[in-house]
């Protein structure tokens, strides 16, 4: 029997003998593997990014919003002709009665024109209270945040993001200046520090005003969200139940609000992004399948190019099994080289992404790398079954007759 080392050596010689063909095949395979690695790294990076963002907010957070989104036993209000009851500021204050709750921040949000003299632009406006800063861990650039006050009292003060400050007060100190938001005037008392994008809000472009002022400005008595911070992480679930009960009592027994823990939101995001990673990985795997079909083509061409050689090998004592093994080894070597080069390409791609977006934690999950390499090997070898068999079955008489 032929020694395994000899099979490898002989196949390597035939791969190096047909250099262009080999290089092209390796590139095709490498692009497939590289694509899987880079795309899953992007997906995984997105997942990690979101998870990081959430955990930077603190993990003992509960979010309350009006309307029921979970499907429960009760008939949705919509079907019986009732719109969900408003989530009011009084509801928000009532939540504080739970002994597990340390802080709350009511949230009202809208979009308005901000103008100062001739300068104006549209920006998201957030109505909230003093506590919001601590719950969201916002940094201040200059000046101060909304002061502690009765949340039901409207005040004409605002805090603006850095981009807004630069655009509306070019080369000026905004603090103490007046700013028109919608049809009202607000005095700027602080500028937010640069924290960048966080949970969909770009804090650089945000204007924050007292929640009661926002309710008047947007003529919207219902709150958008109530952020609730609990004492401990362990008391999250009890707190959630208490909040639900308090609000149910206040709403005449109707459960018309949704209370979710941040963990639940995080888990959902986690699930969605994991699925996304799988999906893009799968799409990239198609290119691997294409590479596999290319391998088959090239191996078939190789068989017809090398009929004389195959015939000769048979004449000097190679069995069908040996011929098959030789062609298999060749395909396996091709796939292995392609996989290795592809991993290199993928690693380089990830490095480049990290250079361009340093904040984005792109990293290929190990399972994806393993899957890519395995798929490459599998496609390479399985698509070479046919060519190898064809080579083995070749009639040596006919093979040798070709000159």
């Amino acid at each position, binding site marked *: *029997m*032929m*020694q395994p*080392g*000899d099979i490898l050596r*002989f196949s390597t*010689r*035939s791969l*190096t*003998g047909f250099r262009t063909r080999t290089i092209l095949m390796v590139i095709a395979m490498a692009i497939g593997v590289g694509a899987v690695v880079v795309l899953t790294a992007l997906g995984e990076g997105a997942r990690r990014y979101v998870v990081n963002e959430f955990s930077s907010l603190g993990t003992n957070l509960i979010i309350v919003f009006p309307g029921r989104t979970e499907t429960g036993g009760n008939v949705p209000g919509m079907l019986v002709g009732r719109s969900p009851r408003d989530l009011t500021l009084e509801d928000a204050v009532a939540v504080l009665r739970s002994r597990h709750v340390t802080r709350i921040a009511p949230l009202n949000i809208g979009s308005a024109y901000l103008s100062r003299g001739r300068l104006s632009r549209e920006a998201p406006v957030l109505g909230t209270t003093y506590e919001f800063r601590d719950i969201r861990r916002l940094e201040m650039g200059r000046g101060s945040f909304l002061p502690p006050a009765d949340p039901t009292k409207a005040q004409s003060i605002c805090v603006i993001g850095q981009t807004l400050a630069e655009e509306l007060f070019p080369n000026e100190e905004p603090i103490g200046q007046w700013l028109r938001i919608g049809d009202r005037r607000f005095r700027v008392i602080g500028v937010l520090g640069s924290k960048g994008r966080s949970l969909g809000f770009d804090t650089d472009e945000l204007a924050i005003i007292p929640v009661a002022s926002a309710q008047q400005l947007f003529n919207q008595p219902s709150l958008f969200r109530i952020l609730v911070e609990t004492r401990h992480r362990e008391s999250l679930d009890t707190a959630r139940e208490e909040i639900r009960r308090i609000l149910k009592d206040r709403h005449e027994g109707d459960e018309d609000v949704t209370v979710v823990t941040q963990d639940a939101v995080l888990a959902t995001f986690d699930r969605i992004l994991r699925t996304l990673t799988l999906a893009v990985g799968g799409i990239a795997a198609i290119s691997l399948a294409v590479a596999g079909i290319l391998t088959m083509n090239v191996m078939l061409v190789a068989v017809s190019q090398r009929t*004389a*050689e195959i*015939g*000769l*090998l*048979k*004449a*000097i*004592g*190679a*069995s*069908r*099994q*040996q011929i098959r093994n030789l062609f298999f080894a060749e395909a396996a070597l091709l796939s292995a080289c392609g996989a290795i080069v592809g991993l290199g390409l993928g690693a380089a791609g990830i490095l480049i992404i990290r250079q361009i977006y340093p904040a984005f934690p792109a990293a290929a999950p190990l399972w994806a790398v393993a899957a890519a390499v395995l798929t490459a090997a599998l496609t390479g070898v399985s698509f070479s079954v046919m060519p190898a068999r064809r080579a083995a079955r070749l009639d*040596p*008489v006919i093979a*040798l007759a070709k*000159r």
Partner: protein
Amino acid sequence: MISLAGIDRIFQVGDQTVHALANVNLEITAGEYVSIMGPSGSGKSTLLNIVGLLDRPTDGIYKLDGRDVTGLSDEDQARVRREKIGFVFQAFHLVPRLTALENVAVPMMLAGIGINERRRRAAKSLGDFGLGDRMDHRPSQLSGGQRQRVAMARATIMRPPVLLADEPTGNLDRASGHEVVGLLEQLNASGVTLIVVTHDPELGQRARRQLHMVDGSIDTDDVLQP
């Protein structure tokens, strides 16, 4: 040594059946020097391929060294070819990307012989064929005569008792042709059974036993008395 009894070989070409060999009976004893001559299509190459186990007869029994090899499995036939039969082709059939030394070593590689012994034996054999200084050349860097000598070194490296040559001088000039024939006859003189297929009468008539084939049958079988 070689015993063919009632060998038929029928090819199906389109809807025509071609009787390439019809009831061939042939006995060749060890150490003989046989030439097979005849016009194209007379079946001489088919006969050689059957003797070399590259082709299977449609009917009949082929015994090699007293053993019926007609119905052997592919694996066993490959072994017989490896150990008992050496081929020399008109077109040399060297592997172009391998050096002369590596080409000679291929049969040993297929037999699973270790690389060091392969190198040693292949180098010695090439030296015997006068190619000691051409071992690391590729076939494209060798002349026709040199290529055929590499092919002969390869055919004999496993020390087979039978050597089959199909038009061994067909692609060579006269001088190289003579050289190759001389080497083949030397091998025969050392005891190897030599069967040469040719339509060159000058080459064919050098053999002590001359077969003439016509239409798939052996027409004449002359043995020269020394």
